[in-house]
């Protein structure tokens, strides 16, 4: 396990510098929208707010691979100096991280966001996107206990959204949804109308084309904190797809271990192995709807895909 203080100081410094946990300009990795048709804003429409989570997964995985090698070694203590990376030219860490992530890996996660847009459009949902209004929510700072850093960042995001007159927000991942729906009103006093994308989908397709059942891995924040586990099941039913419930699902879902990734990749692996065993027992391919869970389960070699990717194949 790394010294949490080193990790918190590093992430807090990065968020202060670049408004994301990596310390590189968000424009470097928030590129998914470039290949999409132009988003035009109309009055009353909702902002698609990705919270930069799906886009960041290839970078998180690259970082974790290095942390995995460092953990428990005599080099682990040197992590305390990482916070001084802010004195490097901004482009340097960005180039380093880009070098460590493959184009295919980036496209895999960017593709999920593109599919979500397509599904929303098909469902007749009025929305728009603008990269300058889309920020990391700061949720990792909150989870790690850096309340001061989280509140400062949350106020920055809220100021920006207010400046652009945003009232309605569509989210794509559970962590950003929880931050915007529950934490922002509590700590900034500002409330937005926040809806996860899957609650807005109105899809239909015939019979699932004979596809076998899928097993649902409910993310903790959707299943337990926000009690939204019915949403993905409804999407699957609308598409005529069968699903099976695994041991520990819905409100009592098991954690995949993802939140431990930054302080202890070894602990993450231990929790992950236990959840993978539960999911494998169902004998069905797994579907989930959180980028952290998805990347973590993929790392374990499980047959897993995102709900949006699955739905996108049927409509």
């Amino acid at each position: 396990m790394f010294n949490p203080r080193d990790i918190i100081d590093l992430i807090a410094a990065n968020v202060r510098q670049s408004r994301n946990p990596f310390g590189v300009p968000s424009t470097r990795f928030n590129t998914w929208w470039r290949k999409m048709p132009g988003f035009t804003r109309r009055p009353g429409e909702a902002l698609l707010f990705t919270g930069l989570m799906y886009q960041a997964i290839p970078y998180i995985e690259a970082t974790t691979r290095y942390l995995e090698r460092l953990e428990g070694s005599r080099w682990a203590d040197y992590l305390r100096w990482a916070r001084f990376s802010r004195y490097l030219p901004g482009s340097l860490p960005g180039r380093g991280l880009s070098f460590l992530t493959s184009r295919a890996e980036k496209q895999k996660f960017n593709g999920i966001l593109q599919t979500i847009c397509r599904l929303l459009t098909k469902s007749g949902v009025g929305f728009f996107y603008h990269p300058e209004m889309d920020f990391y929510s700061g949720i990792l700072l909150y989870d790690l206990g850096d309340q001061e850093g989280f509140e400062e960042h949350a106020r920055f995001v809220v100021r920006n959204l207010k400046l652009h007159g945003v009232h309605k927000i569509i989210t794509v991942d559970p962590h950003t949804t929880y931050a915007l729906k529950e934490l922002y009103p509590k700590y900034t006093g500002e409330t937005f109308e926040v809806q996860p994308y899957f609650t807005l989908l109105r899809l239909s397709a015939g019979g699932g084309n004979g596809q076998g059942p899928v097993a649902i891995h409910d993310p903790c924040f959707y299943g337990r904190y926000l009690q939204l586990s019915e949403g993905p099941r409804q999407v699957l039913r609308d598409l005529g797809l069968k699903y099976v419930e695994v041991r520990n699902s819905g409100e009592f879902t098991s954690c995949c271990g993802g939140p431990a990734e930054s302080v202890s990749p070894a602990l993450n692996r231990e929790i992950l192995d236990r959840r993978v065993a539960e999911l494998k027992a169902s004998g069905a391919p797994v579907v989930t709807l959180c980028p952290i869970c998805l990347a973590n389960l993929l790392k374990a070699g499980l047959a897993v895909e995102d709900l949006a990717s699955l739905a996108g194949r049927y409509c």
Partner: protein
Amino acid sequence: MALVNPNFAAELEAFGVDTALECFNCGTCAAICPLLYEHFPRKLIRYVQVGAEKKIMENAQDLWRCLHCGLCTRTCPRQANPGELILGLRRYVVARWRRP
């Protein structure tokens, strides 16, 4: 031997920890916690109840094992909110690190 701070639970309220004294130490949180680690989080909640401030600081690193998955909070029979309590303790420790 450890010195206790009888006002510790009250001092933690500033960090969002206001349910520590609700806990009656049944251990449901430790039983359901996926960490399966040394009576976590029950042991740390007990330290708060008895005012063992120094013990919390000595075991501070353990606070970051918590996955914030919320299972303990969901199953606590006393609504003592163990998950949020651990999160509040993290805030307390981070503040102590930054302003000793």
